[in-house]
């Protein structure tokens, strides 16, 4: 894991681009480390008008895995779904963000043939992981619709796509693509796959169950509401076989084998 500079720092927004249903925010982070690990995350807020919105929210910073780190710039992918993401989606060039990070423990170095499986906005941390592993790395992505699936264009090569409405790619859940992939390459056929996955809780639960059933190693980047991101508030716990762990300091990437059924966050 890469350590974070202590405290939050200002990062000017360089670009806020619409990518289908999502926003891509690119910020300058000259004072941050150049080598955040895929799966690590940052806490983001805007410098101005964070709070004083409708209902005096947002108030707390929001946690986002970084999607890419290049030349001192950080990429974040987000969807406008609540007061925090709504404000972030509106940020204009030249405005500043408050950022803290990189935080948490990201993906381990691959032990087998890596297989990246993303759902929706959960594609974000897989992008920098593919950057690190190489463009030939196999990527399976699931989205609600073609509009959301535009995020797949950020990846190298040709990711396999599934959509809930069938508007692009296969009309299926991404876990069906994963099942087919595992059927094609059973564990006995050469290098064993390791699944790297991020997505909504029901999808991660399905990935966990499938990996367990097939005896395949899986690392899951989980999500839970966070107030602080650095272990202070004890709010972001998920149940594991060793009891509750804080996703912000013991995750957000956890080994699927350590999780309990149904315990992939909320």
């Amino acid at each position: 894991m890469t350590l974070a500079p202590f405290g939050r720092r200002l990062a000017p927004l360089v670009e806020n681009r619409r990518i289908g249903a999502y926003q891509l925010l690119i910020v300058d982070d000259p004072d941050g480390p150049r080598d955040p690990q895929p799966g690590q995350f940052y806490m983001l807020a805007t410098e101005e008008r964070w709070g004083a919105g409708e209902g005096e929210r947002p108030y707390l910073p929001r946690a986002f895995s970084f999607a890419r780190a290049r030349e001192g710039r950080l990429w974040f992918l987000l969807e406008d779904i609540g007061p925090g993401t709504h404000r972030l989606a509106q940020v204009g060039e030249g405005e500043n963000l408050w950022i803290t990070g990189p935080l948490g423990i990201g993906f381990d170095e691959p032990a087998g043939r890596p297989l990246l499986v993303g759902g929706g906005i959960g594609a974000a941390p897989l992008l920098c992981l593919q950057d690190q592993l190489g463009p030939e790395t196999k990527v399976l992505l699931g989205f609600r619709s073609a509009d959301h699936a535009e995020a797949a264009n950020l990846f190298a090569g040709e990711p396999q796509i599934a959509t809930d409405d069938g508007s692009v790619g296969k009309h299926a859940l991404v876990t069906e693509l994963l099942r087919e992939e595992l059927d094609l390459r059973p564990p006995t056929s050469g290098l064993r796959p390791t699944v790297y996955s991020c997505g909504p809780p029901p999808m991660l639960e399905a990935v966990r169950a499938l990996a367990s059933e097939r005896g395949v190693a899986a690392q899951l980047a989980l999500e839970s509401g966070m107030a602080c991101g650095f272990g202070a508030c004890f709010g972001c716990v998920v149940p594991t076989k060793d009891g509750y762990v804080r996703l912000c300091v013991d995750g957000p990437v956890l080994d699927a084998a350590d999780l309990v059924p149904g315990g992939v966050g909320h």
Partner: protein
Amino acid sequence: MVDLCGVQLRGPVLNGSGTYDAIAARRAFGDELLERFPFDCFVSKTITLAPRQGNPPPRLWETPAGLINSIGLPNKGLAGFLAEDLPKLAELPVPLCVSVMGFDHDELNELVATVGACDEVALMELNFSCPNVETGLIMGADPAETAAAVEALRPLTQKPLIVKLTPNATEPAAVARAAEAAGADGVSLINTLKGMALDPKTHEPWLGGTTGGVSGPAVRAIALEQVHSVSKAVQLPVIGMGGIASGRDAADFLTAGATCVAVGTESFRDPAAGARIGAELRALSRKEREFSSGAVR
């Protein structure tokens, strides 16, 4: 320097118990945390005699300018704290205050006697006021209960005992007076206010623990009034907290009668908030502070 119950601090800014895990923060930020440590005294998360897992998630809900938490005092228990956490907390560059909670007098006695015998510990805070645990509420909400507990604990240690007051009491000043008469060395307030949120989709309680405690700027005005009324009621040093987010806020609490202030939820927004608030407080003119300190009695 600030004198808190005979312990000399480099400044008046503490953390609220349970709002900062210095050990986890050091994992995230490395030794830069120690070099730029944001508090003048570190208050531990509350420890109990037996280990606790804490409440089921979800544990957090954002409110207008604040937060409801339903954490449920997860901790390693006394033995785990002494073996694993205390040696690491002793490496912090500031005095250590350990917060304890017992579910009966025997537990409290063992916690205070054992923790009080540790050289690494400068002060102890008695958490009688956590709103998530029924017994805590009863003890801290009632002057006679508080007095009985403090009287039993007083002979067990030479270390200063600070009673954390709950705002969920009819008259916190009456509890503070009872703590003072029973031999407490200081009081700290406020703890979180009881609160609740409903899931917008299911209309069921959002928090795994059903109810939680509200903190952040949303509670600051309530906290300031309670610090003021308690400061008038007792001679003891008062540690004031509740939504402090700036040096100006901290100065208000000192003006209302507090000796020290504590930063809690603001640290969630910025891990270094305590240092910023301390610097902002120092930057307020000396004249203003001399004029205002303790002025509103």
